[in-house]
């Protein structure tokens, strides 16, 4: 009975939403408010004001840089939350009973992953570094790097996979993303008087490029370590 009630409720909600969607400005046309207002400004002034051809990266890092600062803080909050919930538990059953340790991956998987690892690494680094020229950027590269570390953890035995993330300085690296972003922001504040300010003039373009790449590296490495650590924590390893 409960199920029938929820279904009718959801159908009603769907109908209301469909009616709303019908009245929205037509999909795909160039005259809709989003396309003519802020979006058009970004497309028109993006490259020459922010120095990066990839307008999406210029929006993420430059126009709406504060959003992305908040964004990397969300990842770090997630990591802190996972650590707070999973480590230091009171109950005695400490042995990690998840499936990761029991099923040893077949030799074919182990071999292919070990062969592909360097290529994935190179491609990930490329995506991180060229975020402002070609599609990609800190987040995308960071996720690839994280996935690589997770794949290697699955494949390698505990002793060697622990070395993938440097134990001593892990507490700093995992928060490098927001730190780097804020550092560049403060640099902008000190040098040009406004927080997160990227100079617009032509001759200062190299400095802007360096700032963008630094932020990309920060997000990439930070993101990768966060994803890998969340995975290891869930597997019951520090």
């Amino acid at each position: 009975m409960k199920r029938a009630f929820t279904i009718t409720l959801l159908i009603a909600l769907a109908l209301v939403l469909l009616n709303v969607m019908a009245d929205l400005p037509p999909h795909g046309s160039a005259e809709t408010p989003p396309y003519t207002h802020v979006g058009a400004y970004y497309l028109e002034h993006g490259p020459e004001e922010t120095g990066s051809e990839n307008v999406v990266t210029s929006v993420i890092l430059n126009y709406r840089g504060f959003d992305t600062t908040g964004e990397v803080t969300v990842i770090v909050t997630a990591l802190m939350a996972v650590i707070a919930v999973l480590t230091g538990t009171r109950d005695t059953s400490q042995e990690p009973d998840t499936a990761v340790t029991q099923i040893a991956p077949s030799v074919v998987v182990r071999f292919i992953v070990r062969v592909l690892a360097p290529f994935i690494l190179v491609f990930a680094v490329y995506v991180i570094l060229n975020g402002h020229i070609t599609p990609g950027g800190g987040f995308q590269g960071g996720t690839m790097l994280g996935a690589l570390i997770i794949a290697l953890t699955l494949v390698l035995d505990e002793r060697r996979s622990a070395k993938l993330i440097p134990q001593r300085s892990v507490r700093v690296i995992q928060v490098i993303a927001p730190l780097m972003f804020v550092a560049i922001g403060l640099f902008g504040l000190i040098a040009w008087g406004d927080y997160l300010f990227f100079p617009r003039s032509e001759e200062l373009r190299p400095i802007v490029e360096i700032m963008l790449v630094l932020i990309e590296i920060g997000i990439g490495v930070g993101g990768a370590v966060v994803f890998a650590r969340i995975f290891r924590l869930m597997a019951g390893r520090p």
Partner: protein
Amino acid sequence: MIEALWNNLDYAASVILFCIGLYAVITRNNLIKKFMGLNIMETAVFAFIVALGVVENGDAPIMGDGASAPFINPLPQALILTGIVVAVSTTALALSLVIRIWRQCGTIEADELREAE
């Protein structure tokens, strides 16, 4: 109304996906299935917002050589990049909570947990 809806088909699809996700969240008993439904809802909303920026035969907003005039609006894509990472974070926390619940109560079925309480 129908022909306007036909034109905005992408938005309609995201609405349907949203309702499926909500159905899963409400009726599914297993905690993991519950927030899988949540992920479906999140994807639906992200799809809707990205679809807002699409332009007829528009090109990706990369200003390199060979890119033609009507570019896709970059702003929704930037927003959704953030949205996806938020979804991942919520899922990570939800998964670790489920692991803790499993270790403490031995079950992740919502009704059994309610009796155990």
